[in-house]
């Protein structure tokens, strides 16, 4: 009889938030995989109910210290959808510009400080910096340029306060963008080198069998690489407006996790994030990004999640390229924001957070009070796929010593840059009726 073994990681390192991993396996296969997310639920959806609709972007920005812009963008687009408001092209461009800053910040933190040590054989970025200080310094310089972009448009580097429903509280004049342009140009050069470096790493071989191929899901836009808007598409033919999200995606509570698991109705697990965006939108990347990918021999479609570090580095390069394009074409908006008037309505939106699709929906009453809020973060959407990866990957690596096997599992989780803090914001409401019936509602 095969001896059963377990891999237990009580506290996952180099991920945002608190999570753990449990795997039970033997020579016959993997019997149980649980990515346990035990960071306490953060009740943001409940917190939003009864608040003014104009507060939603600032409140939701507090869900995550790494991707506050994503929360602001999804919330304000959802509320504008409810109000029937469309931002002017100039305001739309500025929103895209601040999103570029956040992609740069978030991706560079993950690439250089969190994921790189896995590939170079170090337990942490600090240990890696002893032997490779230049890699860390370059990564921090790239990140700093993203910080500067978010700081200029958001009013500060973290939890930006300048973004509002209808536009911005204040928009920059052209002269303010010029010094930033110089910094972005220098950092873009570093980003090109970053792609070359990432592509030169040695990657674990991992491809899923034909029957278990990923379903990549991302926004897609006819004219640009997706950030703020688009239809939701997938590699298996899904092509829906964001308003149809609830008809196609489902969330369920899993006993061992504080984060809800998302699935595609009647299809199951799916994969959001940089690899999904890249695979579904390669043609929309800028010529520089496509040329750089070709130079390093990176294909337009990639299904090995360990190579996500290359995709992230390509997206960093894209974000610099796109930010420079927006700055070069900048037309200062005539109005910093469009006036809004509340009405009883419901709206939803999805944008592309650094880690993937971020869906928000809100109900608003005629006084502008939020009556209902729902937020689906990328990590809860990827949680099932992460577990499936471990299930599929492990049999190929059972020959490894246990410590290396565990490290490989942790690296596989970090492929997704999970943000556990983001994924545990749900509200679980238990209702107990006088007659003794009880039920639950995961909001």
């Amino acid at each position: 009889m095969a001896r059963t073994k377990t891999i237990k990681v009580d506290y996952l390192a180099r991920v945002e938030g608190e999570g753990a991993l449990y795997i039970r396996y033997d020579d016959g296969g993997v019997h149980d995989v649980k990515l346990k997310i035990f960071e306490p639920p953060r009740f943001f959806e409940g917190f939003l109910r009864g608040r003014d609709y104009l507060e939603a972007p600032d409140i939701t920005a507090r869900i995550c210290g790494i991707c506050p812009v994503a929360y602001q963008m999804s919330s304000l687009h959802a509320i504008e959808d409810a109000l029937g408001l469309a931002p002017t092209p100039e305001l739309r461009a500025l929103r895209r510009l601040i999103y570029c800053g956040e992609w740069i910040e978030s991706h560079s933190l993950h690439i250089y400080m969190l994921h790189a040590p896995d590939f170079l054989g170090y337990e942490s970025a600090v240990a890696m910096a002893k032997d490779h200080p230049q890699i860390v310094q370059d990564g921090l310089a790239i990140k700093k340029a993203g910080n500067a972009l978010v700081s200029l448009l958001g009013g500060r580097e973290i939890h930006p306060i300048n973004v509002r429903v209808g536009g911005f509280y204040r928009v920059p004049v052209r002269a303010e963008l010029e010094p930033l342009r110089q910094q972005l140009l220098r950092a873009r050069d570093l980003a090109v080198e970053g792609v070359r470096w990432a592509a030169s790493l040695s990657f674990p071989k991992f491809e899923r069998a034909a029957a278990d191929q990923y379903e990549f899901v991302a926004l897609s836009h006819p004219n640009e690489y997706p950030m703020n808007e688009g239809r939701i598409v997938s590699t298996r033919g899904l092509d829906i407006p964001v308003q149809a999200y609830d008809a196609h995606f489902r969330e369920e509570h899993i006993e061992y996790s504080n984060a809800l698991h998302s699935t595609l109705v009647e299809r199951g697990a799916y994969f959001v994030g940089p690899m999904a965006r890249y695979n579904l939108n390669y043609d929309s990347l800028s010529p520089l990004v496509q040329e750089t990918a070709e130079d390093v021999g990176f294909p337009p479609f990639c299904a090995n999640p360990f190579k996500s570090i290359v995709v992230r580095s390509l997206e960093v390069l894209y974000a610099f390229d796109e930010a420079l394009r927006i700055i070069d074409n900048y037309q200062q908006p005539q109005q910093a924001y469009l006036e809004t008037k509340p009405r009883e309505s419901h709206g939803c939106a999805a944008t592309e957070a650094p880690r993937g699709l971020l869906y928000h929906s809100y109900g608003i009453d005629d006084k502008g009070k939020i009556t209902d809020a729902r937020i689906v973060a990328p990590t809860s959407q990827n949680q099932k796929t992460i577990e499936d990866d471990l299930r599929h990957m492990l049999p190929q690596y059972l020959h490894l010593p246990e410590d290396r096997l565990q490290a490989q599992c942790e690296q596989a989780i970090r492929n997704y840059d999970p943000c556990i803090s983001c994924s545990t914001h749900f509200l679980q409401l238990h209702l107990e009726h006088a007659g003794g019936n009880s039920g639950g509602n995961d909001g």
Partner: protein
Amino acid sequence: MTRDTVKGWAIISLGNRFRGDDSVGPYLLHRLRDRLGGIAEYIENSGDMTRLLDDWKARPVVLVDAMVVSGTAPGEIIRLDGLDETLPAGLSITSSHGFTLAETLELARLLDSLPLTLRIFAICGKDFSTSATMTPAVEAAAAQVEQEILEFLKVQAGGP
């Protein structure tokens, strides 16, 4: 991160304003800004420790933070010289991606980004949950730390 003026001294808070006792750092920063005005730069950091490398590089720094240490009571104050003393693991609990303050200092050493001096005032907390209010003992300790920092900076400036 909020910046007011660029001067020699930087006062940096770690912590999240919306997480109970973790808000003591930003709370103190706000009070010190009111008391001290433009003599220092005030920097609020809610978790991205890599930003400290730029924010504190080659300058004198006072850092205020909440911490969790088993066996300590809420409101207990820990004072440390960040460059000379060993930092407890419970510092900077809201740090993203598992970077502790001690690791950030080590990284700063390696990348030549250390502060000139680093005076740390940490207050032990109890409740760090989202939307909780600050524990009364922590709030009382914050008032004491505020006075200590004012006196510390006065001495550093050559005052009585």
